[in-house]
């Protein structure tokens, strides 16, 4: 628990630094992840990875790897390039909690 708290605070802090005055409401972006990454028991055989139980750190790293073409995939590299690193961090934080 402690470790997670630390990561969350650090993330929020770095987010703050990176975006100065811009506003990031993670929901506005993260809701759009749920089109595909729904956490539904109805669809346990889905080929779309569940985000359940993933830490903010892991989601954030995956998003950054997609964005900077370090992790190949059919769709996510095209989407992750649409957001700033700070936005991706905020989304990762949101998704790890909801």
């Amino acid at each position: 628990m402690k470790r997670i708290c630390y990561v969350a605070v650090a993330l929020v802090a770095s987010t703050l630094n990176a975006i100065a005055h811009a506003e990031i409401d993670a929901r506005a972006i993260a809701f759009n992840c749920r089109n595909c990454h729904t956490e539904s028991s109805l669809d346990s055989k889905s080929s779309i990875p569940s985000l359940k139980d993933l830490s903010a750190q892991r989601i954030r790293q995956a998003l950054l790897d997609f964005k900077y073409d370090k992790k190949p995939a059919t769709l996510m590299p095209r989407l992750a390039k649409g957001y700033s690193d700070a936005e991706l961090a905020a989304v990762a934080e949101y998704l790890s909690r909801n």
Partner: protein
Amino acid sequence: MAGLSRRRFLQGVAGFGAGVLSGCGGLPLRSGGKAHVVVVGGGFGGATAAKYLRLLDANIQVTLIEPKAKYITCPGSNWLFAGLTSLDQLTVDYQALQYRYGVKLLVDRVSSLDPARRSLRTLGGQSLSYDRLILSPGIDFRWDAIAGYDQAATEQFPHAWQAGLQTLLLARQLQAMPDGGVVLIAVPADPYRCPPGPYERASMMAYWLKQRKPRSKILILDAKRSFSKQTLFEAGWTKHYGYGTANSLIEWHSLADNPLLELNKQSRVLTSEFGDQFSGDVLNIIPPQTAAQIALQHGLTDSTAWCPVRPLTGQSLFDDFIHVIGDAAHYAPIPKSAFAANSEAKACALAVTSLINQTPIPEAHWLNTCYSLIAPEHGISVAGVYKLDAANAIMPVKGAGGVSAGTDGEAVALEADYTRAVYRSLMVDTFG
């Protein structure tokens, strides 16, 4: 941090900078205390809006008005022509919205709006007042575009552009056609519902014909010069259906300068402006479209026959208390898709809850991904990430989005798998 509630944490994040202030703050709520939002249309836009409004703020009462107790999805309906699905599998009800999220469902049709009183009436004789109205009523057809192709003609020449009996009718006609027969698909100019839809339909029909009636032909008569994911579709057609050869199952012809003007029902002949005549054993005519009647009828459309909106909130340019989302609204360059309607609904729900609670409206983000099947194991996609530019117009984010990168067998098989998985997840996110 861990002790903070989810809501407070989010407000904290949202509060970093100066937000956009609500334009209509300060007006008293009509229902004294609890705000009432009425959502018209239980398709992808309306169902998502109703659900997310309740998720965002359980203090808001949400009534969803939809004439059909069950909804049949257009997404996935082309797969029926390949024998890959059934109408049953494409049907969903509103139980989860009602019982899981507390949305009040009214199975009825809105017959008229009274914007001055912020109320509406239904065909069933009910009168409802609202604090905010969200319209996601979908499309209607321009029956004057091709002379002779009117509503009655759809019984003989289905458009199948609203899923249901029309889809079944078209599938039956395809099945009844002789081997060596011709299917004609007439495609309208932009903008219309689901830009890649006609080409996915041709693909799915070709897949079925290839096995059952391989001497047949599908003729696409297109009012456009080019089409969505054209390179990917044509590569797939070449691979699976002999595209470009004399025996191709699919032919595509642009009639951009020579539009189809008339249908003779008796002779089954379509005539173009220059007098070219086209006929077939199956005529699938997809007419040009407009926003649904309810929007046209109340002056919520402009000269394009679609509803102009302020994208940040989805508010109609003609009425601050009416929001329009989905196919009926003009969100270009975002295409008219179920995925986009779902995304527009979420941005709208965030804006509506902010307006009601008089909190800053968050920056809007939209996403679209349109998958199409060319064959059961061959999927392709186009994606777009959108936000507002400095002039508050929607723009695709540079460097993001675009069509499928991988075209080898493994990549297209993966995308075929994702096509089906994304359909299921979109259904859960919207209706479940």
